[in-house]
């Protein structure tokens, strides 16, 4: 097997401002996060020759805004497992020699009120151009991830026996972590009673099972590992990175909860990395919805499926526990910057730069994004 193990290093991470309302465009936020990641790496715009991320924005606009004079690799992807998509594409670009220094980003803004007439909005919401399944969900008030996620959360609890209280402990624990993170938008502690009292969005999914929309962006600088020592911060190596995509493209037509894309992602990942789940010191697992985080823990082999409820319901996922989880507070506290916050936090942990919430001696970390039909994960290790 051709290997990318340890061939690419993360030498810079950065964030834009992250806020409920930033007053910035999706392009502006992407530029800000890229500039901050380059500052972190001690690089200038002309040192970069690769740039990619989810579109919008257009990578070429971001490149212009950052001042990158030319690129031999770029990517605008339409749909993927959140921010890890850009990271995986960037790793393959650097590992293959398509570019020497890559910047990858994820930028996202809260939905703005549409100015289209209602019928045009209704049609747009259910056009099959990008989503062949959209017309089949539209007239049922189901063309919304909240609807799919809540149905799958119910099925997940039905198949695994994991309880709402145990899922709620993810929200409670992560908020405790967020109280130590100045980046987090929500930093007030919550209790399990707060969780259980939070309103149902779509039963069994509660408000506190969900991340929340913000404006924000994050970026990562990638270089070949042999250059990784030439930068201001301790390098972090990509031990393995890949997607997991199963046989069905959407959230409805899927066989069962034990065969989600997160499981497919994990299989190749560990083989490539030369590491094993027992090596993981810190994890940043997708928490757009609590049950997805729980599923990632099991699918990555960080806990057995039949022990999952007790594992997430107790101290194991806290700082000082067996698997310090989403030490930034995750998206449940930082807001929906679509996984880039989880990735950057794992990198910062492995650099030993997380202050009060630092996991002492962290050497191996795993970050994952997505779930359901599409997933991606990365194993990082200290260089």
């Amino acid at each position, binding site marked *: 097997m051709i290997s990318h193990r340890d061939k690419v290093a993360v030498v810079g991470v950065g964030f834009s401002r992250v806020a409920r309302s930033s007053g910035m465009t999706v392009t502006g936020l992407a530029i800000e996060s890229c500039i901050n990641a380059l500052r972190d790496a001690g690089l200038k715009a002309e040192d970069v020759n690769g740039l990619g991320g989810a579109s919008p924005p257009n990578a070429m606009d971001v490149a212009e805004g950052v001042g990158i004079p030319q690129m031999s690799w770029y990517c605008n992807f339409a749909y993927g497992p959140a921010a890890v998509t850009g990271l995986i594409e960037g790793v393959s670009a650097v590992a293959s020699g398509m570019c020497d220094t890559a910047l990858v980003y994820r930028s996202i803004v809260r939905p703005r009120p549409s100015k289209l007439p*209602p*019928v045009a*909005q*209704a*049609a747009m*919401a*259910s*056009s*099959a151009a990008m989503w*062949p*399944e*959209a*017309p*089949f*969900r*539209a*007239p*049922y*008030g*189901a*063309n*919304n991830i*909240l*609807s799919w996620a*809540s*149905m*799958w959360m*119910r*099925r997940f609890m*039905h198949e695994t026996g994991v309880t709402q209280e145990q899922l709620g402990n993810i929200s409670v624990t992560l908020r405790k972590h967020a109280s130590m993170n100045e980046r987090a938008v929500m930093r007030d502690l919550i209790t399990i009673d707060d969780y259980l009292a939070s*309103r*149902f*969005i*779509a*039963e*069994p*999914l509660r408000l506190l099972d969900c991340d929340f929309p913000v404006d924000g962006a994050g970026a990562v600088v990638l270089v070949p590992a042999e250059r990784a020592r030439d930068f201001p911060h301790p390098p972090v190596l990509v031990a393995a990175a890949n997607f997991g995509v199963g046989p069905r493209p*959407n959230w*409805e*037509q899927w*066989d069962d909860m034990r065969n989600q894309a997160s499981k497919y992602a994990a299989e190749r990942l560990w083989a490539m990395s030369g590491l094993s789940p027992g090596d993981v010191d810190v994890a940043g697992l997708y928490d757009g919805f609590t049950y997805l985080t729980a599923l990632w823990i099991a699918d990555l082999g960080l806990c057995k499926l039949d022990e999952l409820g007790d594992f997430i319901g107790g101290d194991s996922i806290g700082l000082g526990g067996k698997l310090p989880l989403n030490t930034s507070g995750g998206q449940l506290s930082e807001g929906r910057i679509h996984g880039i916050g989880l990735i950057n936090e794992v990198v910062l942990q492995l650099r030993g730069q997380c202050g009060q919430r630092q996991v002492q001696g962290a050497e191996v970390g795993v970050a994952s994004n997505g779930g359901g039909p599409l997933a991606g994960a990365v194993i990082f290790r200290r260089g």
Partner: protein
Amino acid sequence: MAVMADRIKPFPVIDDDNRDFWEGARRHELIIKRCGDCGFYIHYPKPFCPKCWSENVQPTRVSGRGHVFTFNIVRQQIAPGIPPPYVVALVALEEQEDVRVVANIVECAPETVSIGMPVEVTFQQEDEELTIPQFRPAARAGGAS
């Protein structure tokens, strides 16, 4: 009754792949594409059979019977023109368990819906041009989980 130009609720935008399903609904028939060679039901519809690559894919009327594979109870407005509460379910069809039709479960209280509950198709007219399949508790006994 309203026509398309008045629509606020999301509605299906018809294309070459999904037309048979929605035209079937106007006739009060639940239509799923099926491979004429190997018998595989293909939902969401595509022009080739993924099992045998046959192009002999035919719109096929199915029984409309199935069971609730999973469901939610939407409690907050997430789609214009569709007031909560309502149930969204994945209905696993009797003909092929992994064909899951998205629909609301109607003609019963949301709290009475459960995983495995047997359901049957019914048809709901939205306007002059659009009728949508829905599901309601089945008259018969039985089911699966």
